[in-house]
């Protein structure tokens, strides 16, 4: 019973840690827009966490510049299990227009498993909410598998 409560709580209290890896700030703004009174993802218990140790969902935006790659990987290693990695926008998935640059390391899939990809450039806040909601369901599955 206790395990079930914990598994259910996983979907209802996902804390987000946001990593900007050289994003143009478009996706970052839209993610923050989700926290504003208009979209208010706190309704579902989503909260921006200050440190990766508290995070359940790591949200990555930006094309993963060479400078930020090591920091991103170090951040991801510090996130306690179960956790999800969500990419916002095209950049972390493919590099977008920065593709082929000497200083861009995208896609993120080269370095870690990506659970949910939210497409758009930038995605609407609604799409981000959908993606985070999906990630929360995956968190539950991961917890049950633990």
């Amino acid at each position, binding site marked *: 019973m206790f395990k079930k409560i914990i598994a259910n709580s996983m979907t*209802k209290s996902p804390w987000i840690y946001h990593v900007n890896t050289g994003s143009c700030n478009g996706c970052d703004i839209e993610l923050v827009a989700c926290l504003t009174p208009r979209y*208010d993802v706190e309704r579902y218990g989503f909260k921006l966490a*200050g440190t990766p140790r508290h995070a359940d969902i790591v949200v990555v935006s930006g094309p993963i510049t060479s400078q930020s790659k090591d920091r991103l990987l170090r951040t991801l290693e510090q996130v306690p*299990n179960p956790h999800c990695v969500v990419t916002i926008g095209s950049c972390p998935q493919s590099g977008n227009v920065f593709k082929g640059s000497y200083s861009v390391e995208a896609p993120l899939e080269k370095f870690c498993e990506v659970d949910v990809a939210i497409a758009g450039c930038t995605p609407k806040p609604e799409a981000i909410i959908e993606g985070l909601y999906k990630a929360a369901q995956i968190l539950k599955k991961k917890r049950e598998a633990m």
Partner: protein
Amino acid sequence: MPDILARLLDVLVVALHVLIFPGLLFAAVGGLLLAGIDRKVLAHMQRRIGPPIVQPFYDFFKLMGKETIIPAAARPGIYKAAPIIGLVSLSLMMLFFPIFGHSAAFGGTADLIVILYLLTIPAVALIIGGSASGSPFAGVGISREMVVMLGYELPLVMVLLAVAKKVGGSALVFSLQGISDWQLTNGCLLFQWSMIPAALAFLLIIPAEVGTQPFDVAEAETEICEGPLIEYSGAPLAIFKLNTAIKMFVMTALFSVLFLGDINLGQYWLLGGLVLFVISAVLTILCMTFIHAFTARLKIEHLFKFYWTVVAGLALVSLVLVWFGL
């Protein structure tokens, strides 16, 4: 043999008091609900819907289900023990409060002084845990936590002195039961106009004690990433979060005992007392939420100055008035 049985029963009763009512379980549920109400009302003050009131429960259980990472730079023993120390001291504290109609589990002549000490223990536990985590952010956080403690301890002592003097007259009364009994006959302390500055000062101390805006300098999420809690994850973090919630509950309980006192409810003492207690606790927490809603975080030096001038001044006014017999 009956002697041993009676002893065993005594131990069982104490254990029940500590673990269930009015100890750990009651305080935890009450504290988490208060935290939920705080978040919900705050959300509505910002014209959004906000999380469900039981959200802190979800947070707590989720954190319990997360992996606990102990950083390489941490001292594992102290790192894991720190939240437990805080939790124990907080659940012990609940035993001293006479809740409307219910007399305190542990009565004493000077329990107010014990509470004063017990109140510092969660903060000290936070400092110990933070310093054991070995993070520089935690270092900044604990130094701030210490300054905040210094800031609010002085006015808190002055408020308690004023209350003790008011109740006891020439002899200071440091017993919560005594204060409660005095209010049963003489009416709420809050309605004694000489005590109003002290009550205000106490209301201003609660946010600093609990660590909410504008006095959350030690845990500033956006600034130093929750300060002492930065490296914590999983169950220890859950317990720290629980500590904060229980502390909120304890502080509101203390406020209601000190200033709202006791009312003779006759035969409805069991339920009525609890309802009154909850109402007073919620009202107290709403005052905090209201302050939270329209202020931004202070700088640490401003916070210290504020407590040692404005809050301490308010407490001093009360103390002086009480000293002159008003």
